[in-house]
């Protein structure tokens, strides 16, 4: 059993991010006179950042293996363009088009993974090339034009909300129920984890503290769903995000594959001599990144309701920044999916808050740059202590 102080000093990295996010939220809540946390704006923040969060999850895996991917923005744009051609020009069924697009994304990832993992070309170079190649291909596919509008079925992925058969009038009841169910699952999972921890005598927090933590998280979940319910309920894209976050957290923490990915980044030589197929791991991490970049491109195109040549511009930098703010280390082996999401939200709230305040895009860029530097500097200084 350890006290609060020890927990904080042990988890300063993880807590640091969350505290930073909370601080930024409170700061902008005050600066925008309460507009930031209005139901409409919270919904907006989620929808505006969904595609960056998806990229950040993939990028986190790439950075954990000690590599980098600069091409994700271009891939997202290219897939958006392909979706435009498939859905608008060729009139393919929505589901088929989505599956095709995700497949193409994975193929692109396989192409880049091949050069990185099996030919040993630095990922920086391979994906820098990819950034140019796929931006170029986007222009070719679109012939410099914008393709619009997309069919409704496709747009629902990024802009629709969970239907409310309960008809809660002003309040979206289904969303509240989802929030409740989710809280219950969370409590059960935490209790189970605590039981194993106690059984194996791992360090655990004291029981009152544990209850406090559960209470806090449950309140947070339900306040969050309540706020969303006040507007239009849970966005479909939020559900997609939840599935991804939970799924990837599970893979990274609980499976052999996840353990192997961390080991490749932690010490490639040692991993190889322990029988980890290091090349294969790197290859598949890039395939995964390609598929997630494709998903991100589809959601962005759906939200914009158009496939444009400029889509996905600078997405790669947002995704890398999110991963780094979220605790990834460029030397590899370190980082969590949850951290990437928090990092993406920090960037997202900054963007949104500054826009609400009417700060121009010029200052927004500069401030975001400084925040990124500060986050990493904090981390480095903290480690050297």
């Amino acid at each position: 059993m350890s006290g609060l102080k020890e927990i904080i000093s042990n988890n300063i990295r993880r807590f640091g991010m969350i505290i930073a996010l909370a601080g930024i939220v409170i700061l902008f809540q005050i600066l925008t006179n309460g507009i930031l946390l209005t139901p409409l704006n919270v919904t907006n923040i989620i929808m505006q950042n969904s595609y960056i969060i998806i990229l950040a999850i993939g990028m986190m895996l790439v950075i954990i293996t000690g590599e980098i991917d600069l091409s994700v923005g271009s891939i997202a744009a290219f897939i958006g363009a392909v979706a435009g051609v498939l859905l608008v020009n060729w009139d393919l069924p929505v589901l088929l088009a989505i599956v095709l697009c995700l497949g193409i994304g994975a193929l692109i990832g396989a192409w880049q993974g091949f050069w990185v993992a099996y030919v040993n070309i630095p990922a920086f170079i391979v994906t820098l090339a990819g950034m140019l190649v796929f931006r170029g291909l986007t222009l070719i596919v679109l012939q410099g034009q914008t393709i619009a509008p997309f069919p409704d079925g496709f747009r629902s992925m990024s802009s629709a909300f969970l239907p409310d058969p309960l008809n809660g009038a002003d309040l979206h009841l289904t969303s509240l129920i989802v929030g409740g169910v989710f809280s219950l699952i969370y409590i059960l999972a935490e209790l189970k984890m605590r039981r194993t921890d106690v059984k194996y005598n791992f360090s655990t927090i004291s029981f009152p503290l544990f209850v406090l933590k559960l209470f806090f998280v449950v309140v947070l979940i339900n306040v969050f769903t309540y706020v969303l319910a006040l507007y239009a309920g849970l966005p479909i894209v939020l559900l997609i995000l939840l599935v991804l976050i939970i799924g990837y957290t599970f893979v990274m923490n609980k499976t052999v594959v996840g353990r192997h990915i961390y080991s490749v980044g932690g010490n490639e030589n040692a991993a190889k001599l322990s029988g980890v197929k290091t090349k294969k791991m790197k290859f598949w991490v890039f395939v995964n990144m390609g598929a997630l970049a494709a998903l991100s491109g589809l959601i962005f195109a759906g939200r914009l309701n158009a496939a444009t040549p400029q889509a996905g511009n600078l997405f790669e930098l947002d995704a890398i920044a999110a991963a780094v703010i979220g605790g990834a280390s460029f030397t590899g082996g370190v980082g969590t999916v949850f951290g990437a999401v928090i990092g993406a939200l920090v960037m997202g709230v900054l963007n949104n808050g500054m826009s609400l305040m009417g700060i121009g895009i010029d200052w927004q860029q500069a401030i975001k740059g400084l925040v990124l530097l500060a986050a990493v500097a904090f981390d480095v200084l903290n480690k050297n202590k």
Partner: protein
Amino acid sequence: MTKTILEMDNITKTFPGVKALNDVNLKVRQGEIHALIGENGAGKSTLMKVLSGVHPFGTYDGKILYEGDICEFKTINDSENKRIVIIHQELALIPELSIAENIFLGNERAKKGIINWNETIVETRELLKKVGLHVDPQETVKNIGVGQQQLVEIAKALSKQVKLLILDEPTAALNEDDSENLLNLLLEFKKQGMTAILISHKLKELFKVSDTITVLRDGQTIATYPLKENKVSEAQIIKDMVGRDLTNLFPERYPNIKENVVFEVKDWNVYHPLDKERQILHNINLNVKEGEIIGIAGLMGAGRTELAMSVFGRSYGKKITGQLFKNGKEIVFKNVNDAIKNGIAYVSENRKEYGLILIDSVKKNLTLANLKKISNRNVLNASKEANISEALKEQMNIKTPSVEQQTVNLSGGNQQKVVLGKWIFAEPDILILDEPTRGIDVGAKFEIYKIINELAEKGKSIIMISSELPELIGMCDRIYTLSEGRITGEIQKDEANQETLMTHMTQSWRS
């Protein structure tokens, strides 16, 4: 009697957990070639690094007197200002730059930051003539041979008007002719008044060129012999190098050796991974029986690690010929996974680079090589993992507050136990241990020996590679000696002593 140019008094240098130098004294006379000899890890290189300022003043205890002055070198520049130049074991040339650029690197012939290339090249030409190297100063260093690179290093030292030249194993990577050439050059410079300290394993060449020889062992000065006046035998020097008390360093062993050969290497030839012409290992044949511990003895560069890694799923070398047999059946490995699947484990000599994931916990490191055993359909079973790592921690006596501790925070001995534990959990039949006790203290060594003995008693076959001869003699049932990529001897336990081993290990196949 010429005067003393250098005096190092009572030098003591500690690294975390290890006393590398303990009260070492060294006296070098003006104009002599002074040989420094000792086993790997005896402290020769450390002593020279103290002298040249690589280990700055303040990180060691003791006094350095050079030409009568007390010296407190904080950087290499300080020692070079006194015209002491060290040429390290690994050459410090930049392959992509030209010879001239390399020679004057950090010491450029320049005015106001603008390099005078004509002067540089003319001077380089002079220097190269002095070392007897007839190549274009503008040739890129990567295009000339290793022997020539060594000469460039010496030319570089000359460009600094060197008075005291330190050479750390200068002939280790050279062939016979190049070595000969280099040694003659040293004798030539000696005539011109230069003093040199020469570190080498090769007794013959030391006897040929040096005036005085100092033997180091375990970080201590054992003896200094003037070679010219007072005839000292090679045997005496070898005895000084290796002689130490063996009692109680090794745990009791109850051999349980079966007759069946578990693993056999036949006609194993390995070529350098980059240079396909260069053969690293020649026709290696060895075998190990069930429950047997065999040793491989060899000096640095003899090909010990290359042998182990090439056998372990071709982790070293591209072109390999020969056969491997397990229990009489031929096995073919394409990669490390095949080797692990066939029950072979390799514990690397360099645990930080090749053994551990330092940022990961003890638990994660212990289970990495056999995740299958703690998972069900690729999903890890956290409680199984916790149980197993706790059990291994107990079994191996790993001293850590918790298995959740990052391995980077463990001491060397405990880190090594984690690596061993990892492989014990992988349940191999054959364990290749490469320098299993390097850099760890005596107490931890004993525990590791105990673990190795227990494994052998349980019927595992152990191949142990070590630079420490007492360790091999104390632990092994049979010892193969390796020299210049060839097996030069197979010595049974009762015939093994350090003199015999050292004789085989230093045996050159050419002579």
